[in-house]
């Protein structure tokens, strides 16, 4: 009886949690700047300042660049997830929720859902700006659906990693530290320049880290090219890391709270 009743409410409770943390996102100018304005500024900088000097073999640099910019935006949001989780833990909000008759994992899933929704909003804004800058895609509906799926998977992967950091951090600074390595991943990949132009060591790293196959897959989907093996490599990376991070974060969540 009891459990059935709680299951019915799970999605209502998640909705309440979502509204709460979306307010946190929208009321934080800092978050909006980092996850939306900064990637757009980066896109402008690369296209109009550096773009002329970068040889990608495509006609428009913005077309080449956009997948990477989308991943940068997602990566930038990860630090804020840890930060918000840390504050909830530290300020006793989780304790309040956990003493209430709601599913114990609802507050954590609420943060995950918020990350998906807020990233979706910022990615749409970035794509609209890219369209103004001349970005065009020949992708059909199914390709866009696949792109959305891959971006969602990437978001969840980073968000679960960020959750571990936020839940186990001892200080606000500690919670934010995770953001730095994550920020670097898109920069050392084929997101901005083809890996062929990189020195051997960097090239090896760039070609064997998760962001490159994700970028390549999205690019192939955007411009109707065969996705080849890249999509499986990308999915394998994301699903493996996400699953491990999920298990670990859940363990920390159960133990600490």
């Amino acid at each position, binding site marked *: 009886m009891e*459990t059935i009743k709680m299951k019915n409410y799970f999605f209502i409770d998640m909705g309440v949690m979502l509204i*709460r943390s979306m307010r946190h996102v929208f*009321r934080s100018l800092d978050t909006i700047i980092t996850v939306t304005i900064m990637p757009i500024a980066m896109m402008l900088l690369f296209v109009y300042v550096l773009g002329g000097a970068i040889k990608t073999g495509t006609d428009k640099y913005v077309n080449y660049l956009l997948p990477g910019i989308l991943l940068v935006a997602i990566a930038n949001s990860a630090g804020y997830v840890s930060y918000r989780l840390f504050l909830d833990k530290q300020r006793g909000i989780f*304790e309040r929720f956990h*003493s209430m008759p709601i599913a114990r994992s609802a507050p954590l899933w609420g943060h995950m859902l918020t990350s998906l929704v807020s990233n979706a909003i910022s990615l749409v804004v970035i794509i609209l700006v890219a369209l103004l800058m001349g970005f065009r895609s020949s992708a059909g509906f199914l390709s866009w659906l696949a792109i959305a799926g891959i971006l969602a998977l990437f978001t969840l992967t980073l968000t679960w990693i960020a959750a571990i950091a936020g839940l186990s951090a001892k200080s606000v600074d500690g919670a934010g530290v995770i953001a730095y390595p994550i920020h670097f991943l898109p920069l050392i990949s084929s997101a901005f320049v083809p890996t062929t132009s990189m020195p051997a060591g960097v090239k090896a790293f760039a070609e064997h880290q998760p962001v490159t196959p994700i970028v390549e897959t999205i690019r192939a989907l955007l411009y109707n090219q065969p996705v080849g093996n890249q999509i499986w490599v990308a999915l394998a990376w994301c699903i493996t890391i996400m699953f491990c991070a999920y298990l670990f974060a859940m363990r920390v969540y159960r133990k600490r709270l």
Partner: protein
Amino acid sequence: MQNAIRVKGLQKSYRQLHVLKNVDFEVEKGNIFALLGTNGAGKTTIVKILTTLLKKDGGQVTVNGFDVASMPANVRQSISLTGQFAAVDEVLTGRENLVMIARLRHLSQPREVTDDLLQRFGLSDAADRRASTYSGGMRRRLDIAMSLIGNPQIIFLDEPTTGLDPEGRIEVWKIIKELAGSGTTVFLTTQYLEEAEQLASRIAILHEGEIIVSGTLAELKKLFPPAKVEYIEKQPTLEDIFLKIIGNKKEDK
């Protein structure tokens, strides 16, 4: 009649630190029970175990007739907690905080309940300001208001008046008395003997991991020799003076 809370042989350690050694007490339905103890005595630890936030190492604990270990969901259905440190969402306004809890308690009219509580706790004027701009007292009142939503049968208040000015303290006392008047069981912890004296029908003192005394105020007083009666003018206490000067300032603006 069944007791609202029964604790028998409760034990809890944090690694080597044996905080609760053998804690026994019972709280009758509709009563105000005060747990007294110095810093670090283990009051918060007891509250956390009773509210299902922390697992006990040993002993039996039932809240509203439900075992905290085996039926935590039923316990949570019966209780609400105001922790030692105000757990309000600072980014949200007072009103948004209350509506959020009302929705999580699945009430049919969250807005009406919220308006009513804002009024009752003197927070109507500040309702649409972010909680981060509230004074300590306002935050505490919001915190307690959030705990009253959904009319839980048992309310836990961990040091509800610590950090409040005398006026704020008296306001919180009034609220607690009203709660008990309407049949709610109140479990509160405090470091102020006067607070226990003012509110509680039963008092227990936690010391070195055990309840060393418990009973009604009258019973506790009997344990100590009566003070010698002296004929002196009754001096107003500092609190009386403070309250008189402050006058009838009623609401925080």
